[in-house]
Each structure stands twice: as structure tokens, then as C-alpha cells.
């Protein structure tokens, strides 16, 4: 067990301040041979170890199709994330082990319309799949990205969103909770905009959603109302994890280990879990 828990050293290549409390770290393994072997699927996560502070779980926010480095977007929320924000800069070294967990079913959803619904920092795990699907654009039909944040300042990946907007085959819908000056897009919470602006073809659309628990709750209700089958809705579950290997028991919900059987679940699978949330 101790061997499995030992991290490899990564160097931070770039730090991007996305919002006041979200930073994206571009990472690369110190040892190139490990970097070459390191592959992951969209939706998987890694364990960050900050030497002296501890470990923390983050999903990889970039696609394995863009090799060489990988991104993690981190919101300042707890003790360790505060350390990450305060102590780390370009050139700092951290430990990484992973990738762990399951992934978005990018093979199964081939040839389907994709509807991404993200809220706040929840765009990070989606970004990995968005990048993947954009890099394999011909395998997928229409791509719609619905992204909401509290304010325009809280939006992550602003540059990349602009790029997506410019793409002709991607439909990007942005929304913020309250009207601001110089904001010309939609205003309103995600479920409301979803019902108003998105008119998907129910027969061949997969929904991939991630965001804060309260947004997920109402979005799932809206999706139900719109007539989506639970098996077509894919989401990620948030649960505290520590080992990522299905051993430490922290992420146990019912007989499911979120770190191993998840974090990606369809709404159908989620309904079967004991109602702990």
C-alpha cells in the first residue's frame, strides 16, 4: 500500500489566475519518461501532494490529446488549497500520483449530440472532455456548451471560451446570475437558461454536467422536465477522498467507492445510491 501511495515529482510550468480564487496550474513530470507514460482519460483525477501540507484530489482539466503537460484548476477552499494558492509558483515542485477513477464514456457517446452544462469551477472536469471531443470533432455531432457563473469575474478559462465561441461548430451559451455592466449575454441561473435556450434532440443527445451541488440538483430536475432519460445524463459526484485506490473508505457511499467506481456516474446510477446528499 505504501508503494502505491508514493507520488512522483512534478514541476509547475505555468500558473494562470483564472478568477480571484481559482488558479490553473500547468504541470509536467520532472522525469520525462514518466510524463511519456502518463496517460489519462477525460474525467479522471490525480492526487496532489504538497510537501509538508498533505494530499488533495483534483480532476485533470485538460485532455490527453494535448500531451506534454496537464492542467489542474484549483479553487481556494480549504487548508491545502490555500497552501497551493499561497505557496506554489512557476518552478515549484509538487507530488502527483494518479490518474485514478473512471472517466466520461467518450467512446460510448460517439456519434451523439453533446450538451455540456457547467457551473463555476465545475467547468474544469468538463474542459478535459470538451478538449477531447473538439480534438476528435468528426466523431461527435453538435456540441453545445452551457456555462454559468455567479459573476463574469468568476468565469474560468475566459480565453478558451472565447476560442470556443469563435468555432463555428460549437454553440456556447454563457450566463451569469445577476446583470452586470458590459455583460451582453444571458442573465439567470443555469437551469432557467437551460430550459429557455436549449432545444435538444432528445433521441441522440447526451448531457454532461458538473457544478456546485445546488446547481446540479436543480439542473437534474430541469433535465427531467425536459424529458431526458436518466441514463443520458452524466455527472460527477463530489466526495472527500484520500487514497484514490478504493482502500481508505472515505468516499464510500453505500457499497460504491466513489474514487474507483466514480467520480463519473450517470443520473441513473446515482439514483440507485443511498441518499446521503
Amino acid at each position, binding site marked *: 500500500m505504501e508503494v502505491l501511495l508514493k507520488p512522483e515529482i512534478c514541476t509547475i510550468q505555468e500558473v494562470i489566475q483564472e478568477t480571484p480564487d481559482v488558479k490553473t496550474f500547468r504541470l509536467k513530470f520532472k522525469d520525462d519518461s514518466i510524463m511519456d507514460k502518463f496517460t489519462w482519460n477525460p474525467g479522471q483525477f490525480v492526487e496532489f501532494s504538497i510537501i509538508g*501540507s*498533505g494530499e488533495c484530489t483534483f480532476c485533470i482539466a485538460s485532455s490527453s490529446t494535448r500531451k506534454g503537460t496537464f492542467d489542474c484548476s484549483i479553487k481556494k477552499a480549504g*487548508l*491545502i488549497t490555500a*497552501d497551493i494558492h499561497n505557496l506554489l509558483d512557476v518552478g515549484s515542485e509538487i507530488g502527483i500520483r494518479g490518474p485514478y477513477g473512471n472517466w466520461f464514456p467518450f467512446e460510448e457517446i460517439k456519434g451523439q449530440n453533446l450538451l455540456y452544462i457547467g457551473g463555476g469551477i465545475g467547468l474544469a472536469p468538463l474542459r478535459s472532455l470538451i478538449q477531447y471531443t473538439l480534438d476528435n470533432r468528426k466523431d461527435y455531432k453538435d456540441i453545445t456548451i452551457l456555462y454559468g457563473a455567479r459573476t463574469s469575474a468568476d468565469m474560468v478559462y475566459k480565453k478558451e471560451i472565447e476560442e470556443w465561441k469563435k468555432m463555428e461548430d460549437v454553440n456556447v451559451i454563457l450566463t451569469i446570475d445577476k446583470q452586470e455592466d458590459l455583460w451582453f449575454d444571458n442573465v439567470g441561473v443555469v437551469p432557467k437558461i437551460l430550459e429557455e435556450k436549449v432545444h435538444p434532440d432528445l433521441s441522440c443527445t447526451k448531457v454532461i454536467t458538473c457544478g456546485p451541488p445546488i446547481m446540479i440538483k436543480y439542473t437534474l430536475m430541469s433535465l427531467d422536465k425536459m424529458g431526458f432519460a436518466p441514463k443520458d445524463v452524466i455527472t460527477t459526484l463530489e466526495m472527500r477522498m484520500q487514497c484514490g485506490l478504493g482502500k481508505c473508505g472515505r468516499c464510500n457511499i453505500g457499497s460504491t467507492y466513489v474514487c474507483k467506481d466514480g467520480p463519473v456516474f450517470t443520473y441513473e446510477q446515482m439514483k440507485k445510491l443511498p441518499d446521503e446528499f
Partner: protein
Amino acid sequence: MNYSKQIQDIAVRLFTENKIDVFVGYRKNVGDDNQTPFIFKNPALCDKLVFTEKSTHNLTNYLTNETTKSKKVGLVVKGCDSRSLNLLLTEGQVKRDNLYIIGVSCDGCVDEKNEKEARCIACVMQSPVIYNEMLGIEKEKKTYTIDADLLKLKHMSLTERADFFTEMFSNCIRCNACRQSCPLCYCDKCVIDQDSSLYHNGANTTSNAGMALMTWYLHLAGRCVDCRNCERACPQNLPLHLLHKQNEMVIYENFQNHQAGMYEKDRGAFYKYNLSDPDDFIM
């Protein structure tokens, strides 16, 4: 000492008069003669209540957790328990109006081997100091005596003492039963728990266990009422009371015979000061 019948009657009365939502008392353990805390909302269960010399737990521990929070509580206290209740009241953790306190003038509790507990032999306050209703005869406050185990410890040499405590800390499994059972440890987030905090670490090494216990001792100095919930709870049977008694002794001898929780509105020893406090040890 058997007040089972009286307490059952009072509990039934309180429930029927709608004075309480929850009752916290003792019931007999299934399987052996010992007793266990019993918390219930259903008046029909009142007949399970007992109170004998086996009722050793300090029930005020339950006043600060979610089971009884912001509810009207009926509660059984002995002399020592009422002292911790006093402290909880002054520290603003419970509201007096929410409590109906049944004080029992106690003759001392017995342990599993049916011998009188050491703490009860040295007990200074057998009758409750705060109550709505008292069972038994009010007893006088007794004089303070230094704990016999502590005296023994004091006669050891410095290295012997250090060895004693190293041994004690190395036997600790850090289950936090002592802290969780302590009625005066009510913090929502304990400084011992915070992983990767500046002070503490979850790993169980001798020094970490020592650090956690020392923190606990120091945060309880001047507040510990010697109910020994901690020592009874300890799965490793560590002599946890020693350093509490040590602090109690220093405080009693130096700060105008202060004993925690003896009066209503009494604060812990560290919440007040006196101009004539000893400072000859300070350069």
C-alpha cells in the same frame, strides 16, 4: 443509593407537563450490570430509567451535541456533573431555561469491580450545586486533598517521570475517546483534529499523542471537574486524570483555592486574575 423510582416519576411528570422534549438519564446495560446513558424522547420509555451507585457517566456531555441542542432537556446530575454544568452555563454553551435539572446527592459511585471509585473517595462536592429539584440530603463541601497517585508521581525523579509519561503516550491510540467524553470539550472543530494544522498531526506517534493530550490538558486547566469520563472512556486504561489533578492542585494552591464550577456564574480559573497572583518564578 437508589433513586430509580423517583427519577422515573419525575421524568413522567415532566413529559406530561410538557416541560421537556428529551430526557437524559441512565439505563441498565443489556448483558451486564453496568449502566449506560439513555437519551429518549418517548415518554413510554421512562420506566427504563435507573439511578444507582453504578450511574457513573457525566451526562452533561450530551448537552452540547446535536441530540439535545436547542431542545428542552431533563437531565440527571450528580455533584461532580453539576459542577461541569455550571461551567457550561457560564461559558454560554447551554441555556438555563432549556434545562430541568434533577440533582442527586451522591454517595459515591462504584466501578466495574463494585469498589468505590477513587475520585469519589476524594470528592469535594457530593451534592449538586445547581438543580431544579434535589433527591437525597444536602451534604457539606469537603476539604480538598491532593490526589494520592499524583503525590506518588511527585516523589519520582525527573527522568522517572519523563519515562512514565513517555510510556503513557506511547500506549495512546489517539481514538479521541477522552476528548469526546469530556463534557467541557464542546468545540465544533477541535484543534487536535485539524490535519495539516500548525499544531497537530493525525499520525499516531508518541510525540503526536503527547502533544494532543497536552493540548487537551492545557485547555481544560482550571475547568476540569474531575468527573473522570475521560479515564473511564479510555480503551487503553491510561491514567489520564493525573495531569488534570496536577493542574487542579496548582490552581487550588495558588489562586485563592479556586475549584472549577463550584458556584453558579463561576468562571474557569483562567478567565480571571488577582493582582497578588504568584510571579516569583518569572525573571
